[in-house]
């Protein structure tokens, strides 16, 4: 009897699924997506996959998405407007969407502070979030599938150059043997070790600092020791000589463990921090001149 009961239930189950279309929703969201929400259009952030198998009775391929953004405690911080949602017509089989389609940034209603931050930066505050997507019928009144996915948003602030500070003057007697560079760490400190690369460029005669920075071959282009925010450079250059280049521009390039530049607003800069200029001065020359002038004046 038990066997018949099981077969009966199985038969009913299959009948219902044959009558109704079968829709499954899969949110394959990268748990560490790009911090700029507009970048969610790229596959690196994951994909939303909707599988659609039409039934004999209910086979409406039109669906709408309702997106809900929740914070770490699963409190709702943003909901999309289902009435303004785009109607998608599903193909039979697998339908692929970007995570930007799932997020519906154009249609997402956020509270004042979150909306303000999004307007100002295109990002969410750092933290843990949940993305919930519900698949509605085209009328927007029946939920046909639903999935929720966790993700963490983090943006990085590039290091700030500390020493030599911008427009610092260094004594040539010391600088031609050794210059110490220091910078702040990438913020927040990455769980994977950050890879820093120090680059120093000579500013040639007539060049502006940025001209040198954009085109010249760096005179120093070395990785710093992993995780260390200090580099001692031994230039061994004749900086006391009057014809030597006495102006330099330097920066730090920050890269992740795979050697990929840390993302920032303008990726043309390839993860380079705001550069600083320093000048090498020879105090002996000015002292010599002063003494000779004093002597001339006294005689």
């Amino acid at each position, binding site marked *: 009897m038990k066997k018949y009961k099981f077969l009966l239930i199985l038969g009913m189950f299959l009948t219902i699924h044959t009558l109704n279309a079968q829709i499954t929703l899969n949110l394959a969201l990268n748990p560490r997506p790009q911090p700029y929400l507009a970048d969610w259009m790229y596959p690196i952030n994951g994909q939303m996959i909707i599988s659609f198998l039409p039934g004999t009775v209910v086979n409406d391929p039109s669906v709408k998405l309702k997106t809900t953004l929740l914070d770490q405690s699963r409190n709702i911080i943003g909901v999309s407007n289902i009435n303004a949602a785009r109607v998608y017509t599903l193909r039979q089989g697998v339908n692929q969407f970007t995570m930007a389609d799932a997020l519906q940034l*154009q*249609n997402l209603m956020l509270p004042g502070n979150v909306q303000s*931050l999004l307007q100002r930066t295109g990002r969410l*505050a750092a933290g843990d979030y949940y993305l919930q997507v519900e698949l509605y019928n085209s009328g927007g009144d029946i939920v046909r599938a639903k999935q929720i996915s966790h993700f963490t948003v983090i943006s990085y602030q590039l290091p700030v150059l500390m020493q030599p500070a911008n427009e610092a003057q260094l004594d040539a007697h010391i600088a031609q043997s050794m210059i110490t560079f220091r910078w702040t760490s990438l913020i927040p400190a990455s769980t994977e070790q950050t890879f820093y690369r120090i680059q120093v460029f000579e500013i040639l005669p007539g060049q502006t600092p940025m001209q040198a920075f*954009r085109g010249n071959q760096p005179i120093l282009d070395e990785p710093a*020791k992993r995780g260390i925010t200090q580099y001692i450079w031994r230039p061994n250059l004749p900086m006391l000589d009057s014809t030597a280049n006495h102006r330099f521009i330097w920066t730090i390039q920050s890269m992740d463990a795979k050697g990929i530049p840390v993302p920032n607003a303008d990726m043309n800069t390839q993860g380079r921090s705001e550069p600083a200029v320093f000048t090498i001065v020879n105090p*002996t020359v000015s002292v010599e001149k002063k003494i000779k002038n004093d002597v001339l004046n006294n005689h």
Partner: protein
Amino acid sequence: MNQITKIALILALFLTSEVKAGEKKDSLTVKGDMGIYYEGYGLNKTPGTSTPDFYKARKPWNLLRYSFNPVFSYGKWEIPVNFNFNLNLGQNNFNPGFSGFGMPPGMKQNFWQFLTNPVNNFGIRPKIGNTEFLLGTQYVKYSDLSTGDLGIFGYGVNLAPGKFRIKLFKGVSQGPVKYIAPSIPNPNGIPGAYQRNQWMAQLGLEKEGKYFAGFNIVKSVDKTGSITSPPLFPIEPQENMVISFLTDVNTDKGWKYHIELGQSFFTRNLNAPLSITPVEDFKPFINSHTSTSKDNAVMLGIAKKGSDWEIGTKFNYYGAGYYTAGFQFMTNDKMEYLLNTRFNAWKKKMNIVGSIGERYGNLSRTAGPDLTKQIIANINVFTQFTDQFSMNAGYNNFGFNSPGLSGYKSVSNELTFNPVYTWNSTTMSNLLSGTYTWSKYDETTILPPTTTKNNTQTALLLYVPTFFSSKVSPDFSLMWFKNSAPTINLTLLTSTAGMSWKMNSKFKLKGQLQYSLSTTSPFTANKNLLVTSGFDWEVFKRFTWQLTATANVYHYGTELPGNSLTPIYLGNPAYFESILRTGLQYKF
């Protein structure tokens, strides 16, 4: 354009300017300078080839550079010219992305690329009366929050009718660069870049030396169709617009005021869908995309200057979404203030310069839950105790703190003393200068919980005798440097002797010898000899020739044993580096 044609053109420029300069027409005057500079670089390593490559060439083998900076004046016309450029046609710019110039290895730039290459500068600014034209490469800086520091190749005009100031400029700050995938001969590839066009305008009122008030408008757009092989994600075409209001006021009583308020619209990715959320369109300038953001920045400053003192303060705020394409590297999402002063004391024998400020970062909390905090403080006291003895003392403190589990903290304290003593006899003067710097740099990370203590000491002793009746001027110095940290214990000892010999009023011979020992415990010392010699020669009136040759011999100690290289080398590696610099300069 081949090398010969280019050199011919340069020579023509050189000769033309000489002829013009020599002409004695009252109406035409030429002032300025021109020069040609060459730098040759050589590197010989022992062993010649090895893996890993223990020392890489750090300069181009040959670098020829030309500069031509005259100001032509003819009647009401004034034409400043600013040309400086590299003559290496095969050069590939080091930063092909944001320099806006890069091409496959082995290819040569064409004439147009040569003109617009950011490493070169071809700019003229003809001026007649109150009208100034800007042509070629220009560094247009209207204000701190708007135009930036990039060279832009284009054209524009500055007008100054009465108190009105009207400035317009249009150009290209970044040329198109094709994406080239990494390959075996070119392992880094070329990331590529879109052509970036810039438009800028300023409308203001000015009374020179008294006040300026005006608006700046800058728009930058990456041309999406500018390149057949566009760069890959995350380099995307961008659009930026900045509007700023700027005012500067100087009063007769020594007060200075500076205010600039800016707002930027920034579309990180023009390929993202058009959308009026989250940022509405700013017609007719900006059609918003989902990747558009809008934010503000503020700069305020006030200063008062007295006869022998000065005090000032400034406050800056840059919103996390504030961006100007003219200054791509600007650090935003921060607020900072700085107080600075300079005054004399103790019968004007003491001069004190000091500043203190704080910088708060991560205001948006997009990089973590907490603010970051940075302290910048420094003071410098110079005291002239007697005619013979003076002392300079300085203290710097830089502190950075990012709290939280992913936090980081660093504190740098640096103290410097520099006493200088001079004494004279009837035949000579002597100068003895000592510098001692103590620096402590501590870094703390929460995860893993580690504090790295980095202590540095530097001592420099300098002796400069000056002979009243001699044409020889020597100087001698000794330097000791020690850096102690958990992973490094470095000691550096350097002795230097320099000499210049003014053989006659036009010819000066100079030379320098430096020997260094750098020891990283527990290894034996690396030894370095640096020899430099050369001359400064005034060949003709206003025409000078300078030449310097440098030899740098470096022998590694056990820090780099030969058996750590492939193929194994018996003994410790060494290299010989040579640099030849020469320049001809003519002032007219």
